[in-house]
């Protein structure tokens, strides 16, 4: 089911949570709404679900205007951040709930066999008799997904689906959700504040800030070509170096990088830690190492430039570097944004 949001607006009391968002989600696509807290991403998801009504604009499911269809009739599967499993029902009863209350009557045998299928799909065979309190967080997450899928939703909506889980379970479930999505092909929209999760899982990432979309595209597009300093910083660690732009080039100390389309004057260079090289000799930006952090996948160096800017970059684990050493920084690639 294709979803189309047209200039959707939502205001709570006096706070405008969503300020005119237009968005197209293709049928079968897996899209992430990514943004910091307060960016309006959960509100958008809840409006697509019908748990909130939009104050302005329209939401289409296919060709049908779904803006004012109540959640009960909207045919969406919603997975809540804290799962909202019914604590007094077994796992099987939780999954069967949607089928039991549905206007489409199913007999008990049909419901039972569907529950068994879904338990297999979410790899929880044999746990149908347990209560939600008796299973782990990751298992609860999967029950919540099975429950949402049981009603054959046109759209699957997930609110911070992995937010309450620890890092390892998170990564496993993420890959697994991707598999389920390819298997079922159901249009899926999920909300997260975790950029790694969004980039890992989604076909397309929609980045939000203060109730508006600031950029959207495939993970490759948003990572390789961030259109604003906000997106650059939000997607990952970024070093900021003051620069001057003249005739399409940005100059910082002895370095210069291409800055097509940036107005002349003061600007900022943004570089990822992996895009910075460190050498004992110039040319480059002079800096002094303040701390060396060893990590499982490499060695991170913290340094300060002569101008007092804090830098973080990675060096080979074998490279001998010590706090207090001075040297020069060069940039392999960088983005320039005017200030």
């Amino acid at each position, binding site marked *: 089911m294709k979803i189309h949001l047209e200039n959707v607006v939502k205001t709570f009391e006096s706070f405008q949570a969503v300020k005119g968002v237009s968005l197209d989600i293709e049928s079968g696509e897996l899209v992430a709404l990514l943004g910091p807290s307060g960016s309006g991403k959960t509100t958008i998801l809840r409006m697509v*679900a*019908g*748990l909130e009504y939009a104050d302005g604009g329209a939401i289409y499911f296919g060709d049908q205007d779904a803006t004012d269809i*109540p*959640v*009960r*009739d909207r045919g*969406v*599967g*919603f997975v*809540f*951040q*804290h799962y*909202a*499993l*019914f*604590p*007094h029902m077994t796992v099987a009863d939780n999954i069967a*709930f*949607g089928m039991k*209350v*549905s*206007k489409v009557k199913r007999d008990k045998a049909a419901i039972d066999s569907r529950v068994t299928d879904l338990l297999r799909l979410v790899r929880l065979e044999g746990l149908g008799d347990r*209560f*939600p*309190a008796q299973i782990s*967080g990751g298992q609860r997450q999967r029950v919540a997904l099975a*429950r*949402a899928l*049981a*009603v054959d939703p046109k759209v699957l909506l997930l609110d*911070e689906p992995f*937010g*309450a*889980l*620890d890092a390892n379970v998170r990564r496993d479930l993420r890959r697994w959700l991707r598999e389920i999505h390819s298997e079922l092909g159901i249009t899926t929209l999920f909300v997260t504040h975790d950029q790694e999760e969004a980039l890992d899982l989604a076909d397309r990432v929609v980045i939000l800030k203060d109730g508006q979309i600031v950029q959207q595209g495939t993970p490759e597009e948003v990572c390789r070509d961030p259109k604003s300093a906000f997106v650059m910083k939000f997607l990952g660690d970024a070093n900021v170096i003051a620069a001057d732009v003249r005739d399409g080039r940005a100059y910082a100390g002895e370095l210069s990088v291409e800055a097509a389309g940036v107005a002349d004057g003061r600007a900022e260079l943004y570089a990822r830690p992996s895009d910075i090289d460190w050498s004992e000799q110039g040319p480059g930006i002079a800096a002094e190492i303040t701390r060396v952090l060893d990590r499982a996948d490499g060695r991170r160096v913290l340094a300060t430039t002569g101008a007092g800017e804090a830098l973080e970059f990675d060096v080979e684990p074998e490279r001998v570097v010590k706090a207090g050493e001075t040297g020069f920084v060069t940039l392999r690639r960088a983005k320039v944004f005017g200030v």
Partner: protein
Amino acid sequence: MSNLSTRRKPPRVGDAPLFRRSLIGIVLVLVAFVIVAPLVIIGVEAFSKGWQLYRDTVIHPDTLHAVMLTVLAALIAVPINTIFGIAAAWAITKFDFWGKRFLLVVIEIPFSVSPIVAGVAYLFVYGLQGLFGPWLDAHDIKILFAVPGIIIASMFVTAPFVARELIPLMQAQGRDLEEASTSLGASGWRTFFAVTLPNVKWALLYGVILCNARVMGEFGAVSVVSGNIRGQTNTLPLHIELLYHDYNATGAFAAASILALIAVFTIIAKVALERQGAGRVRKQANPAEKTS
């Protein structure tokens, strides 16, 4: 080893033996004189003139009528207040509306107002000189000094009990479960009976029991509006007072023993429910991992 570990315990406030013993002593003495002694006296005095007189008092038509009236008041007031309590708790915890905080305060008023004030207020509303008195009189509707007055006064006094038990629990549970239920296609009624009610049933029963105990024991408000007509508008607590003023101490104690018995059953039911409820909480204690 164990000796060492007990000795190694850091001293806590009030850990001195003298302090501890006197504190426990004071509490025991107070409980004995203030709570236990009167209850024992009720039993002793009720039977002081023998089983026969106790029986006579209990099966006396006026006493039986008082018991029936008390039960009737409870049968009407408790269900109404239960529905009111559920509705109020639902409205306050699941919806946002203007005046919500105000409603919360208003619901609590009967807790803080002396019941006799409520009784007097009803006199001014429904009494002959009151607001609706003349109209009611003209239409031959009797509220004061009749059963409806007793029920209304009981309802006022016990209005907050159910709501007060439900609100904190339903607030803690939030709206997620109801939203999940409707997103799965359930109607409002279905959601209420299949999802909301099962999750608050222990608190609800607890509230109903407290409400019932209070309706049956209510004296102040009822005494003002009932008119104390023996065999007609006398509830059990009022009947006890009447017997006492008749210098029929044994009769008063006999009637009081019935109320005390009801109270004992209430407490047993309450403790049993608390155990059940606590067991449920432990079993289902939602160890919901908090988000970082």
